[in-house]
């Protein structure tokens, strides 16, 4: 390190947390910052751009091509969406299905996650990986096959059928993330609770569950959003009785003015934005990443 300093070069020493003397920024590093800035800006436009455009669209009256912003503003598209009984009904349906699917998914997957985390049984690893199969093949093929089965079981166009088909998309992370969350609770913490007199159930509710809760919470949010956004399977199984918001989008894009579709898209995005903001801390904290590092 000292040799490098004496030569006055700007070679950085990696991985050594020593105090480095202040250096003047070289032209190369300025260029680096500019390129970095442009990339960040591009990313922001890529992510925020469509939403911004949708927002403009949703409030626009007359908007012709060369103009950068709409000619005049209106909220009539919002009114028309909220006045439309069909659309309103689909919103209601979506907000019924998503919580139901989340709860059912949790009821099925959380015990499985606990078992994957705490027990060793033959085929544990195979089972864990095989959950990924639902995401490994084109979904629509899977749904068509399911539809065949559902006709036979009289589940087509039923509430239960829609719940089943939406569950498919939630199983992987509803199992993996809580498995990692349970695994990250050291066994010695549970043993210590047994040691001071807590029975197995009390240990679970007083120690294991509170410590795994953030991971479980993230998984439930993701399940809620997956169910809320699921269109293909719901369309195939649910029509004509159960038309949720995303399935309604198909009709909307074809049959309604563009602005109404924009309003509807925005409404569809609202829960995602709110919920993701809510769990930002936990997702950033690596709970999501942990799910993919189960041993």
């Amino acid at each position, binding site marked *: 390190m000292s040799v490098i300093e004496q030569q006055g070069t700007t070679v950085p020493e990696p991985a050594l947390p020593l105090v480095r003397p202040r250096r003047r920024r070289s032209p190369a590093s300025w260029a680096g910052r500019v390129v970095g800035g442009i990339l960040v800006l591009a990313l922001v436009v890529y992510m925020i751009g469509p939403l911004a455009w949708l927002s403009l669209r949703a409030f626009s009256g007359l908007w012709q091509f060369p103009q950068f912003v709409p000619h005049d503003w209106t909220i009539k598209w919002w009114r028309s969406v909220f006045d439309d009984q069909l659309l309103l009904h689909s919103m209601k349906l979506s907000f019924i299905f998503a919580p139901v699917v989340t709860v059912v998914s949790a009821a099925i997957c959380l015990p499985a996650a606990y078992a994957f985390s705490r027990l060793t049984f033959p085929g544990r690893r195979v089972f864990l990986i095989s959950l990924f199969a639902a995401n490994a093949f084109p979904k629509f093929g899977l749904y068509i096959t399911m539809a065949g089965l559902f006709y036979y079981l009289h589940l087509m166009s039923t509430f239960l059928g829609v719940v089943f088909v939406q569950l498919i998309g939630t199983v992987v992370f509803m199992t993996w993330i809580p498995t990692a969350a349970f695994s990250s609770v050291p066994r010695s*913490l549970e043993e*210590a609770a047994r040691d001071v*007199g807590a029975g197995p159930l009390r240990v679970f509710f007083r*120690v294991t569950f509170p410590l795994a809760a953030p991971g479980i919470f993230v998984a439930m949010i993701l399940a809620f959003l997956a169910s809320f956004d699921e269109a293909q399977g719901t369309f195939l199984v649910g029509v004509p009785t159960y038309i949720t918001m995303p399935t309604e989008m198909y009709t909307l894009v074809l049959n309604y003015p563009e602005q109404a579709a924009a309003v509807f898209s925005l409404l569809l995005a609202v829960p995602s934005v709110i919920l993701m903001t809510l769990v930002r801390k936990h997702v950033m904290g690596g709970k999501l990443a942990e799910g993919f590092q189960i041993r």
Partner: protein
Amino acid sequence: MSIDIPNAGLRIDRVSKDLGGRRIVSDLDLEVRAGELTCLLGPSGCGKTTTLRMIGGFLYPDAGRILIDGEDVSGLPPERRPTSMVFQNYALWPHMSVFKNVAFGLRLRKLPKAEIRVRVEQMLELVGLSHHIDSFPARISGGEQQRVALARALVLEPKVLLLDEPLSNLDAKLRVRVREEIREIQQRIGITTVFVTHDQDEALSISDRIAVMSGGNVEQYADARSLYREPATTFVASFVGTMNVYRGRVVPGGVELGDGVHVPCAELSSHDTGEFEIGVRPEDVHVVADGDGEGAEATVLREVPRGHYKELVLGLGGEEIRAFVPADLPPSDRFRIRFARALLYRDDVLHRSQTTAVA
């Protein structure tokens, strides 16, 4: 049936345990008297932690019994045993404050709130942590976490306290201080304690008795002094402290090592003659001054300063021998040495004089 020791704190009666198809603990017998601190000392894989976990109820013995105060607890789960454990990584619950950590066990016992408060405060005072009563475990130092774990274990007034390498996560200086604190508290309340460690220094300095374990069984169970002075097997001899071990023969006035080197020795554990394994502590290797009788010629290979003494690595015939000598011994290329004391082993077991053995 073996005899019941009156007031026996803890008795392990011919306990065996297999884990993963391997015998970890094999036909183990151990008895810890009430109020006594016993160390289970041994290398990793010797079965000491498994033994401790069986006492705590985290593992059940495949054979044998564990008795606490004369009562068989072998089949009880941890929550129903009168034992408390301090875990290696402390295992404090991160979502509870220090107060709640210590109070948890009392709450499960449905004690009145006011009494819980008093007992937790008393206990935290005992371990010197009253000022951290509302802190969370992540906010206090390793040594403090250690003492919270101890308080959490002691507040339930267990009959037996179990400590699983409780000092291994502390740095060297703190380790010495905390182990003395643990010993001091243990003696003050007079609790029967089993302490697992692989650190012989730790074991020698705080135990009433030490059980040196190897291969799932107790090699020797004795107090620190006899363990060091009279290790019963070559394993104990080399595991506790440093020991020079050679093949050789006992001859009149001393021992003869492999290459026919004759070393005078004043005190032998046996006067039988013949082939033995000969064990000599480095401090029992004495340098013979000129004109102070006979000694074997040894050359100095290395000299290691150790502070108040120095360690010499000597060449003696074809063998190397370690000696602790005073720091002020003038340096030299060669010394004449004799053994002040030597232990004789046959088939890895300490060989005592026939007369002593019969007596």
